């Protein structure tokens, strides 16, 4: 079972109103890069306990995909207090993810 909180379209408003940093990974079962990023983010859940780490299925969550202007997975979104701080697409390193989370958490 993933250590990331699974979310879908109907939870968008809740996520936006959550205080603190939220990190959302949008991926799909056929998205190889997403599998690697999932593993990296799961590793961060113990290091950054105050951060809300989420995962959403790209094809099952069209409103989330549109909200974050994501044409294909993977995409990683960093939200804080209703504001999108950063948006990454495609392959990304653990170091880059750590850098962004550390600065925003």
């Amino acid at each position, binding site marked *: 079972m993933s250590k990331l909180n699974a979310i879908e379209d109907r939870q968008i*408003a809740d996520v936006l109103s959550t205080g603190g940093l939220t990190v959302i990974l949008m991926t799909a079962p056929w*998205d*190889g890069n997403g599998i690697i990023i999932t593993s990296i983010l799961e590793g961060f859940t113990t290091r950054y306990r105050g951060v809300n780490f989420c995962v959403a299925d790209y094809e099952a969550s069209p*409103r989330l*995909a*549109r*909200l974050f202007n994501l044409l*294909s997975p993977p995409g990683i979104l960093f939200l804080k207090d209703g504001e999108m701080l950063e*948006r990454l697409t495609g392959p990304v390193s653990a170091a880059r993810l750590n850098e962004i989370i550390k600065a925003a958490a």
Partner: protein
Amino acid sequence: MDTDIFKVFILEDQPLDMELNKRQVRKYRPDVLFAVARNKVEFEEKLVNFQPDIVLSDYNLPDMNGLEALLYVREHLDSTPFIFITGVLNDEEKVADTILNGASGYLLKENLRKLPELMTSVVDQSSQVMQRREREWERRKTNQTLLRKTMAGLRAAEFDGKGDALESLQQVADNLA
């Protein structure tokens, strides 16, 4: 706009004014996603990727003025609604220039409480443009998803010319993005 979350981009260098703007936007729509920029670099880095439903911009910024911001939006985001919120734009000639250059409206900071009303009017006027943009986005998304899924399937298969085929498809995907 088939999502019920409204996307607002704010270009403003003063933290207090930024917060006041956000507060008024939330009176217009409680479910809102913001992206913000405080200078030209942040503005150009974030704007296009965010694809806002509307842009709210101060006129006087440290390294650019509002008209430059407006022209950048018109160049990169077609007809996305654009509102100036400023303490300076009170000269009639400047107002005329601004409207002629394609702003959807302007508001003096001292009248900021009128922002929800102005946003309602501007968004209503832009609904056809926004619907057209949504359809275009859906078309691009469908194409990208089909292509990426196909590529994922091909990677798992073994056949002659696999490397070349995947490279070609990758180029197509990049060109469509």
